[in-house]
């Protein structure tokens, strides 16, 4: 059953509702959806279907949870994942509302601490660690990452520059250098796969350059983990990053 038909069937179940106003609204909704040309993509209808589905099947079914979440959030995870449409952690790791403060950017990169250049990432880390006090930071890389491929192939392929993309993926240069040194004889696809994983490790090291992360690690209140989602083979790897700095003394 297509999503449109599913949405209509789902709505029809509510026509027995005794609330006349609700019934009228639902009938109007069904009519609107039925008039949709199935061959034409309507972004508005797509968003509406999705939201109605969420409201009926999730929000209305778990009122206590959503009432609590309305008051605040206490996620256990800060997650960094790629913006790629295929790798949302809410799907692959089934994160529910309230579980994961989630940053998504090209190639799931965490740059080293730099207040001038990377305030967006820094703000997310600061908020998640200092205010929300997440217990775990998880950086998830993935297969066939376009950002990593760009890092690995440009500028050597003499392609035209992408001003913003190239500036961003440069964060991963140390990973590229390492992969080329160790695996430079492998085909590009294999080098990219190595770099996808190496870049996750690099991001974990970069996380340690943030003072609040250092403190969390020193106090053993924070754990850093790296993940790798391979959507070609349906696999997931997880690794834990041990702290490299140990608090020795304070004056």
């Amino acid at each position, binding site marked *: 059953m297509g999503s449109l038909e599913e949405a209509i069937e789902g709505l029809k179940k509510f026509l027995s509702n005794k609330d006349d106003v609700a019934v009228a609204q639902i009938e109007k909704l069904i009519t609107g959806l039925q008039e949709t040309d199935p061959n034409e993509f309507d972004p508005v209808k797509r968003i509406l279907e999705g939201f109605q589905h969420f409201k009926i099947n999730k929000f209305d079914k778990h009122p206590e949870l959503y009432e609590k979440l309305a008051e605040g959030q206490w996620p256990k995870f800060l997650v960094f994942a790629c913006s790629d449409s295929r790798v949302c952690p809410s799907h692959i790791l089934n994160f529910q509302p309230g579980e994961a403060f989630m940053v998504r950017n090209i190639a799931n990169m965490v740059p080293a601490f730099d207040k001038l250049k990377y305030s967006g990432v820094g*703000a997310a880390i600061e908020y998640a660690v200092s205010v929300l006090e997440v217990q775990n930071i998880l950086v998830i890389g993935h297969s066939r990452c376009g950002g990593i491929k760009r890092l690995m192939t440009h500028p050597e392929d003499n392609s035209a520059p992408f001003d913003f993309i190239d500036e961003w993926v440069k964060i991963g240069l140390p990973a590229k250098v390492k992969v080329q040194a160790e695996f430079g004889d492998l085909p590009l696809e294999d080098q990219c796969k190595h770099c996808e994983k190496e870049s996750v490790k690099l991001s974990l090291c970069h996380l340690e350059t943030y003072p609040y992360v250092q403190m969390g690690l020193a106090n053993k209140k924070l754990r850093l983990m790296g993940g790798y989602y391979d959507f070609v083979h349906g696999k997931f790897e997880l690794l834990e990053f041990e702290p490299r700095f140990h608090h020795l003394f304070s004056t």
Partner: protein
Amino acid sequence: MATLSPTSFTKNFNSSVDFPITSFQTFAIFGPKLKTEQTHFRLSTSFKTGSCLELKAMKEPPGLTQKLDKNRLDGLTESENGCDLFQDLKHRFLRFKKHKFEENLGHFQNLAEGQAPKFMIIACADSRVCPSVILGFQPGEAFMVRNVANLVPPFESGPSETNAALEFAVNSLKVENILVIGHSRCGGIRALMSMQDEVDSSFIRSWVIVGKNARLNTKSAASHLGFDQQCRHCEKESVDHSLLNLLTYPWIEQKVAKGELSVHGGYYDFVDCTFEKWTLDYKGSNLGKNSRLPVKNRFYWC
């Protein structure tokens, strides 16, 4: 449409093994056999010692304190030992693999070859507002950027993670729609509205200042309202300003002018569970900083 439902999960997996802790421990969550791999990763960057690593007392950014109450403390479980956390993540992935990946194998195989999402979404990193959940975006449908307070910096601010993603989505993936989604009780917007003039060295301030025009508009239009209502006003105002900032990118404006790209704003209220959506009505007019955003097709769903 498949749902993400937190069903109970009772299957036992016997594939966990304890390994000695080294710098990196790898656990294969799924595969024909378990593999272990001890990798060593040396930092190629150097770190300064001494004062840079001092653990200074943290000054909490203004307006962000969450009161710890009994309910929160009750909700916090004791910190799990390593195995429990890994097992949990493993179970989550295997459930996804069984109920979604394998049941739609053809679709996922196609996706593995390439993505062609129709949407680019810019949403807040807040744990309560993932667009995959609230709008049901399935794998392959939406290229997604999530940052604090779903802000879009203008073109002239220079390279950032958000505009790198914009460049990729618009110029490489050629998405047809950009949707910026704001939400209720946004901590980032609250920080923006709470900022004082004194120098504040926090990252949060350095980032949310991108929304300063939204704050200015809010202060002038809604100063008679209470602070919470002002924040709500700013949450929506900020979405409009992000839409305006999108048009400062020449390659975005060109596509919008040609009708190849539509730009939408959205607002998710998780208190009442409502969703508002509006579309930028681009007529080629000069959209200055102070002009109201021309919109069309405004919907309110409740």
